[in-house]
Each structure stands twice: as C-alpha cells, then as structure tokens.
C-alpha cells in the first residue's frame, strides 16, 4: 500500500539526520557566548517547530475529516497526536537541559518553555478525549473539533504568554537570538528540521496504516490482506 513511501521517508530521514548531526556536532563552530552547550539547539529548535507543525496538521486534517467526511483525514489526525506529543516532550526536556547552563536553573518560566508546556497539555487533552469516547467516528469528530478550537486558541495563548513573560522577566537576556546566526550553524539546524519532518512522515504513515487496519477489522479487504500474511 504505502510501503515504498515509508521506506523512502525512513531512509532519507536517516541520511539527512546523520549528515545534519555531523555538521552540527563536528563542523559548526563554537558559539562565542554559550560555548558548546548551544549544540542542543540542533534538536531543540527543530523539535519545537515540529510540535507546532504537527498540531497544525492535526487541526487541518480534522477539519477536512469533519467537513468532507473523509475517514483517512481523521486517521491521520489521530495518528499524529502521539508523535506531536513526543516532539513537544523533546522540545521541553532539551529546553530545560539547555536552560540549566544558560539560566542557572532547569526550569525558568520563559515564554517559549511555557508555551511548549501548554501545547503538551493540548496534546494530552486531544488524546484523552479521543480515547474516552467509545464510538470511533464521534471520537474522531469530537477530538478533531477540539484540535480546531486549540488552533484558534494557540495564537491567543502564545501572545498572552509572551506578554506575561516580558512583564515579569524584563531583564532576561534574549538567549534565542536568531538573526545573527552563523551560516554553518543554520545549515545543520535546517537539515535536522527536514530530517524530523521526514521522520514524522514515515511514522505517521505506519500509524495511519495501523489505524486503517484496526478500524476496518471486520471488512473484507482487511481479512484478505491478513490471510495473505
């Protein structure tokens, strides 16, 4: 069905990821301010991008599922949630590990970390609702609607957290300054982002296939497929 695609995504994610890691860990120069600790950004920043990107994918495919009644879109949304939550978790943990040498504490109520934490709660809410409703179709629709409501709220949440943060920590040095980033640092960062996206594509395909098998477990096509295995 989608096996060649999955293989292609996996292999290219692995190759690009390894090349990105090589450039990030060996080639990129030491940061003059943060020393070697800045090398965490090669996973932290792409993971943070992914956390938001996957939530958008979830909301958009939920919207498609609700409006045009396309089951595949619902399955993609449901399959995305655990992957998105994983990337959000990575972004949080690496952010904390980066924060310790930078701020002197693992957890500081920094705007980005706080927003990531709230995003993680949004993912948990989606997954909890999805698993709480017995009937598969309405579970998809209900959690899909929640994802859409969440997407409408994310800019508001983000704005208020930013605002709240500047209010309480006006003196924090901007550690996440990007504009002056060295090109040798930017390239591995972008490569890692591409690798994460390809990885997500591969995993979401496998998960969607599982969802399809499970949901259609009483249909003939699944039965025939299984008997051939």
């Amino acid at each position, binding site marked *: 069905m989608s096996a060649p695609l999955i293989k292609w995504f996996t292999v290219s994610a692995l190759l690009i990821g390894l090349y990105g890691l090589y450039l990030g860990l060996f080639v990129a120069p030491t940061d003059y301010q943060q020393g070697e600790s800045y090398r965490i950004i090669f996973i932290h920043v792409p993971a943070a991008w992914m956390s938001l990107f996957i939530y958008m994918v979830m909301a958009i495919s939920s919207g498609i599922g*609700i409006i045009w009644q396309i089951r595949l879109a619902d399955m993609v949304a449901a399959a995305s949630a655990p992957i998105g939550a994983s990337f959000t978790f990575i972004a949080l943990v690496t952010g904390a590990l980066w924060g310790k040498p930078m701020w002197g504490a693992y957890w500081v109520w920094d705007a980005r970390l706080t927003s990531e934490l709230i995003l993680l*709660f949004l993912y948990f*809410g989606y997954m909890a609702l999805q698993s709480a409703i017995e009937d598969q*179709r309405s579970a998809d629709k209900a959690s899909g609607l*929640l994802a859409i*409501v969440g997407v409408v709220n994310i800019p*508001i*949440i983000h704005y208020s957290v930013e605002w709240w943060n500047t209010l309480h920590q006006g003196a924090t040095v901007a550690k996440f300054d990007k504009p002056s980033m060295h090109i040798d640092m930017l390239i591995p960062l972008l490569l890692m982002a591409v690798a994460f996206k390809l990885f997500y594509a591969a995993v979401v395909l496998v998960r969607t296939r599982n969802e399809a098998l499970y949901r259609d477990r009483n249909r003939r096509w699944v039965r025939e497929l299984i008997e051939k295995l």
Partner: protein
Amino acid sequence: MLKAYYHLLIRDLRLALRNRHELANPLIFFVLVVTLFPLAVTPTPDALEAMAPGVIWVSALLAVLLSLDRLFKQDYDDGSLDQLMLSPNPLMILVLSKVTAHWLLTGLPLVIIAPLLGLFMSLPMEAVSVLIYSLLLGTPVLSLVGAIGVSLTVAVNRGGVLLSLIILPLYIPILIFGANAVDVASDGLPVTGQLLFLGAVLALAVSLAPLATSVALRITASR
C-alpha cells in the same frame, strides 16, 4: 429567534431557581478556596495583597469549571437536548441562551461576591473595582469556552477530569490578563490595555464559541 432565546433563558433560570441550594454551591466553593490560602501562608496584609489577584482568579476559574456540568448534563440525561436540536431555531441561538443562563447563575454571583474576597485578601479599594470589571469581562468567556468542552464530554462517563484537562489550557489567556489587571491596579497603574484585551477575547468568544458548541452538540448527539 429572539423569542426562542428568551423562552429558553427563562426556562433555564426557572429550573435553576427551583433547587436553590445547588445554585449556591459554586459560590461557596469560591469563597472556601480563597479562604484556604491565608491559612496556608503567613497572613500578613502585604503577602496576601501580593497573591490576591492570582488566588481570586484561579479560584473563580475552578468554581466556573466545576459548575460547567450544569450547562448541558441534565438536558442530555432527560432528552431535552435532543428536542432542542430538532427545534427550527438555529442551534447557535439556543446555545447562546443556555450559556447566558449559566453565566447569570454562576459568573454573575462570583462577580458580586468578589469584593468580599478582596477584603479578605486585603486588596486596596482601586484594585477591587478592577477585580469586578475583569471578572465581569472574563467570566462570560469562561462560560462560553467551557460550553464547548461540556458539549464534547457530556456523553462520557465520569467526564469531569477530562473536562478540566481539555478546558483549563484554553482558560490560560483569561487568567493571565484578568489576574494581571488586578495586580497592576493595586500598584495604582492604568489597566485599560488588559481590560481591552479581555473585551476583545469576549467578543471573539461570543462570535465563535456558540458555533463550535453547536457543532460539538451535533457530534455528541450523533452517537
């Protein structure tokens, strides 16, 4: 349409007034939770004043959250929710009417009792008036957004914790701006910006939340 709105509103208010003790529960909860805080810390006026905005706002949030069940649960159980959905009136209007009733029965009492809690927490007078304004703008949003959550979870057994899990993250902006307005006001600074933000969020919620709620109700009913 307006007629349907008023009819449903009056029906809900009447039903609620029949069991008054249940009506008082969120209010008592609100006062009780706020009372716990001075007992848990050193109750010097300075310390209390510093944490008052946050404590009062978080307690209001939780009080509304606990009362959300009332919004659709009973109607769902006795089947009148299905009746509402069959009615020729737009579901959004009916949802808006139910939310209005919910706010009049929980949000408004919270706003009225808030000055007393301000007194408990030694808030200065200027901050108390801002507390009232911020609650007046914020609690309707809590009811509106909460309605989306309840309509998604009303058919789930023991959906209470689930409801908090999906709704509380959405309440964060209201909490930040509401509590901050009171905080800033107790330092004697202007709070127009914060109140304008709350007003803007209220406008957004009034226009979008009933739509989302009616879609959610249809999803719930299609089971």
